[in-house]
């Protein structure tokens, strides 16, 4: 792909590219201008592609000394006013948990990509898994809300990377894209539209009186305006519990107020955030629920089931967190069973079960990691439980 690079920010045209390259191109199309990275299989190609492309469009790439530094530099660059991102895999994602917390607490827009491989620890470096889904939700200490997306093809990675930037700029927080080794390394057709057809969102910057400005005072959407360092607002940004002005306040009340701001801006905008895809749900008696690469397994399994007369439907989660509780609750009320398909031992299955609340039985077709789940296993499970 690298020989194809041009000076243009948006590579308009029809391409054959991997998910990792599509991610880098999506970032550029979204307006990313800073990338702080650290090499790791199977995410390295994102850094490689962007190291070549970013400086040509006026941006900066740096390979930091580790993933803690990588994400921390991204937060710094974001406060200097640039759309910023990093990409990694499991071991690096673990190191990023500290800076994810700082990004959430200081409401710093940025994008983090985790091209998942099997764990724990060094695990299977070159083989895919989907087992960091709960880490993406809860990996940093403390309570919080976060936005996590799980695209299932190179084309979708391109678009969801843009969406991730737009959401992070809109709601001022780190947004995580969870892909996996399989989608990251597979090559497929990716159509990149003209720059003018790509919707990009930029954080709102304050214009008014500098002395009266409050750094974390929410607007009606629950999100505060964000100046950049050097704009003259003399802001103070801290990872300590802080008030609307940004000043540390070590009280139970300030903690409660800050937590309400941090979680409210997500919880009160769920409808604007959650994306799902529904296939054949109208007449479905059994519904497969999946995301990322395992969606492909489900599509095939659904076709196999339908050909056997089983009315199978498919709910594809594009947004994983916040979780589409209501949608699954509603489904559970009208179908015979829910089957979650994922390359882990039941992380999202747990959530589905929670939402099903006993209204419909929830089953798991899981996998310890390293390869895709064959559709036959999903079909067999459907036949068994119906």
């Amino acid at each position, binding site marked *: 792909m690298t020989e194809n690079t041009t000076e243009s920010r948006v590579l308009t045209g029809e391409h054959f590219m991997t998910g990792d390259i599509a991610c880098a191109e999506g970032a550029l199309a979204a307006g990313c201008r800073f990338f702080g990275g650290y090499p790791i299989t199977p995410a390295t190609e994102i850094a490689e592609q962007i190291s070549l492309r970013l400086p040509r469009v006026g941006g900066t790439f740096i390979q*930091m*000394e580790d993933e803690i*530094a990588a994400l921390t530099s991204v937060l710094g660059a974001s406060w*200097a006013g640039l759309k910023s991102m990093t990409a990694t895999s499991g071991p690096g994602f673990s190191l990023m948990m500290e800076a994810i917390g700082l990004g959430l607490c200081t409401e710093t827009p940025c994008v983090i990509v985790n091209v998942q491989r099997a764990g724990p620890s060094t695990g299977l470096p070159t083989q895919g898994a989907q087992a960091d889904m709960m880490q993406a939700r809860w990996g940093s200490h403390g309570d919080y809300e976060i936005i996590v997306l799980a695209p299932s093809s190179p084309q979708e990675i391109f678009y969801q990377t843009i969406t991730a930037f737009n959401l992070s700029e809109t709601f001022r927080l780190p947004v995580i894209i969870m892909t996996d080794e399989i989608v990251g390394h597979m090559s497929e057709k990716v159509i990149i539209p003209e720059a003018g057809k790509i919707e990009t969102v930029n954080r709102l910057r304050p214009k008014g009186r500098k002395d009266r400005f409050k750094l974390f005072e929410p607007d009606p959407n629950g999100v505060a305006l964000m100046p950049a360092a050097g704009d003259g607002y003399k802001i103070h940004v801290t990872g300590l519990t802080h008030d609307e002005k940004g000043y540390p306040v070590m009280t139970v009340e300030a903690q409660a107020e800050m937590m309400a701001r941090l979680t409210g801006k997500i919880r009160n905008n769920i409808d604007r955030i959650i994306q799902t895809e529904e296939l054949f749900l109208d007449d479905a008696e059994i519904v497969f629920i999946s995301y990322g690469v395992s969606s492909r397994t489900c599509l095939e399994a659904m076709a196999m089931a339908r050909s056997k007369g089983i009315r199978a439907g498919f709910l594809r989660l594009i947004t994983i967190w916040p979780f589409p509780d209501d949608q699954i609750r509603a489904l559970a009320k009208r179908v015979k069973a829910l089957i979650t398909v994922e390359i882990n031992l039941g992380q999202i299955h747990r959530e589905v079960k929670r939402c099903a609340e006993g209204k419909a039985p929830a089953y798991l077709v899981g996998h310890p990691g390293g390869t895709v789940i064959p559709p036959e296993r999903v079909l067999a499970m459907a036949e068994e439980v119906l």
Partner: protein
Amino acid sequence: MASVNRPNKQQNHPLDDLIRKDRIPHIWCPGCGIGTIFASCLTAIKECVATGKNGFDLDKFVMVSGIGCSGRAAGYVKLDSFHTTHGRAIPFATGLKLANRDLNVIVFSGDGDLFAIGGNHFIHAARRNINITVICVNNLNYGMTGGQVAATTPYNAKTTTTPAGNAENPFSLPLLAYASGATYVARWTMLHTRDLTVSINEALSKKGFSFIEVLSPCPVNYGRRNKEKPLETLKLYQEKSIIKNGADPSELDIDMEKGIILGKFVDIDKPTHSEKYDKLYRIE
């Protein structure tokens, strides 16, 4: 009640415009050296802006701190200021500086923050020659958490986690900075405020990675356990310090018997990270 000598509360301090007065009182203990070093830093910033050289603009000065007593500085300065996570002030500052080169980025933090948990970030930023200024308040221990051993604690010194004395040897911070590639390296104590202010001014004006170590008393946690009364630490600084500009960086171990060498040890010119990056990547 006759408070003849008490300063008038309304009186203005020359650094008032650089301080978030609505955040005072600060958390620093009586006898702590951090405030004096902080004041030197603010004075140097003011001087830089007053001269108008290098296009210095107060709006473009940014202070970044990690976590610790010293790290609280970012919370009191009336500049764009960032109080980050423990040890990560330098990578945060790196991101700020690379994203906006007009910013004048100062990292103000403690020895534990910059050289234990953040040690790797320090050597890499120096190696890359990121154009920032790093000021380290070295109080020879972890003040904030109650006086534990640090990477700077002298051999045999008592801390809460070395109750029988420190079995390890400390880093020589100027040697580490020099070896890592810093373009400006100096060491002072909080007693040498005038030299320190001049030095910070030079460091801020210097193109490249500048580093200043400032020895500072922590009477509450370090002094108390090492039989140093607050004034005695300052006396040591006065009596045991030797100013030796240009001293060999390999001879800068802190040794109270032989004396502590202060001064400016490195002041060299070389291209910054951004200059080299532009040359290779932004070919017209």
